[in-house]
């Protein structure tokens, strides 16, 4: 049909082939960043430890044996035992599963709420924007730890079963964190919606929903990835803090936070460091690793930094 139109020939194509996709460029930049790679290795290690480690443990989570209580690290109990004679290493690994899971699920909730509300606010502007961002302001003005403590106490008051508490926790932590992401996404959308390609979608008669979720949000993925990564660390810390205070994940379900709180008296703290150092290290390593990855991703995905 287009015989009399001069076709564009291949040479343009071969030139284009040399150009990397944005993702490849970002990957290359990320892998060049030593700290980010170290963070990544650390987090992979934590995941392997927590999710695969317990399979190789000779002990059982509910092996109470009071004659073995408060043992220092030894051949059988590599990291010692707690005051009920349970293996610290096993409990630490299982606690990690829960902490990491809370971090990930809470972040998913944060991303869903934050990205959607931020995109809607930025896209519609005016009244909708005002409404959403003022609600965000309110959320931001509230100090999150006291709120978490109150909600945690409410959970305890409602006598929520310990095993289902973690689901409530995920939702609470996830919901309380949506504002940062919403702000970031909104800012991006505000500039994106003025771009010519959005005018083009308008000229095609596309529906708003499609414009927001198919054309605008994918353009904000770099921002979302960075914010989400950092929010995983935040969520894990919130969970640990709550569990330490006894209103997050409650025993017998182990979590790094409530394991540390087991060492809440001076004797345990000074004489039995194996009770609190391992879970403490886990929290430290995980949050440092995630922050390193987050910073690395930020640099890698920022179009303004070269190479």
């Amino acid at each position, binding site marked *: 049909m287009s015989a009399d139109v001069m076709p*564009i020939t291949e040479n343009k194509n071969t030139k*284009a*082939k040399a150009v990397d996709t944005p993702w490849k460029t970002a990957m290359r930049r990320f892998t060049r960043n030593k700290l980010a790679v170290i963070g990544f290795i650390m987090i992979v290690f934590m995941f392997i430890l927590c999710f695969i480690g317990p399979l190789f443990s000779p002990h059982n989570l509910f092996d109470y044996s009071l004659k073995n209580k408060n043992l220092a690290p030894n051949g059988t109990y590599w990291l010692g035992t707690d005051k009920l004679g349970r293996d610290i290493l096993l409990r630490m690994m299982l606690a990690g599963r829960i902490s990491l899971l809370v971090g990930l699920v809470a972040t998913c909730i944060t991303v869903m709420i934050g990205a959607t509300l931020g995109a809607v606010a930025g896209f519609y502007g005016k009244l909708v924007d005002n409404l959403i961002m003022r609600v965000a302001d309110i959320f931001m003005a509230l100090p999150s730890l006291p709120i978490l403590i109150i909600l945690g106490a409410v959970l305890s008051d409602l006598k929520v079963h310990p095993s289902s508490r973690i689901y409530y926790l995920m939702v609470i932590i996830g919901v309380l964190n949506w504002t940062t992401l919403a702000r970031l996404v909104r800012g991006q959308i505000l500039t994106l919606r003025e771009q010519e390609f959005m005018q083009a979608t308008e000229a*095609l008669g596309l529906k708003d929903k499609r414009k927001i979720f198919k054309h605008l949000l994918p353009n904000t*993925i770099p921002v979302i990835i960075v914010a989400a990564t950092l929010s995983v660390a935040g969520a894990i810390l919130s969970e640990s803090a709550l569990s330490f205070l006894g209103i997050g994940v409650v025993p017998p379900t182990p979590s790094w936070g409530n394991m540390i709180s087991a060492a809440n008296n001076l004797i345990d703290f000074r004489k039995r460091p194996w009770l609190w150092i391992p879970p403490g290290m886990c929290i430290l390593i995980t949050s440092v690793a995630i922050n390193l990855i987050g910073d690395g991703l930020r640099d890698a995905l920022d179009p303004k930094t070269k190479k």
Partner: protein
Amino acid sequence: MAKDLVEFRNLETHFQTTAGTVKAVDNVSFIIREGETLCVVGESGCGKSVTAMSLMQLIESPPGKIVGGEILFEGEDLLKLSKREMSRIRGNQISMIFQEPMSSLNPVLTIGNQISEPLMLHMLLDRKAAKKRAIELINLVGISRPEKIFDSYPHELSGGMRQRIMIAIALSCDPKLLIADEPTTALDVTIQAQILDLMRDIKQKLNTSILLITHDLGVVAEMADYVVVMYAGKVIEEAPVLELFQDPQHPYTKGLLKAKPIINQKQERLYSIPGQVPNPIDLEDNCHFHDRCEFCMDICKVKQPPFRSHGKDTHKSACWLYEEEREVL
């Protein structure tokens, strides 16, 4: 003569700015016929894009508003349609390509994805049928290896290819009217020629009407059937293309044609007429061109010349030089 497809009737589009009201489009009337290419020419800021955007109803409001007139599309007034009915016409019956091919495609979606979108939306094709049609379209706009291009991202294509893709998207639903707002300004000269060839080719094959907005009289000479000349928000002359080039009436048009473009040869920007485009805010009710016109008379400064034909029916202009009553006043 072919049927009327679009008729602008006394269209008025205004912008409210802090400095005052800008009458970007002021009482504009003209007709686009089926299968015809109509070119709108004029200096920067004279309201060409706003005219096109009014037709699409993509005027940003506020500050813009269509305050008067009608835009008839196949006899139906587009300005009376609901938002929903209008978005069914956009991209379907009337589609548009923009000046900047580099930024008119979404950088994170594949070409195929973006061509399929209007097909699935307006033609209700399923994914597979849409892909088939998209590949046909990529072929139609003269890009080789359409299957590969289907899966590429915009940054992998050159500017000329992207503009072809934009044309493919615009043509996807067999529009009756294609609006092209300076489609070749951002491209280099050889690619410009290719894109224009492509548009002419498509017009012939699909019998699509084209509303072409341009600065370039070379493009007008090559593409247009009919020309509308705008100045400061008003149509000051309209005529079939040959007529306009042979016998321009309005002094402004004559000025434009002074650096005579040779047909089939590319021309740089318009020859610039001495003086400035008037400040578009609060224009008086006179000939807006009077302070740059070498034939300016007293009446020109106080009264607007009527827009009508002086001899041939199809050739109209607005200038006191051709009016008899000017002595009376």
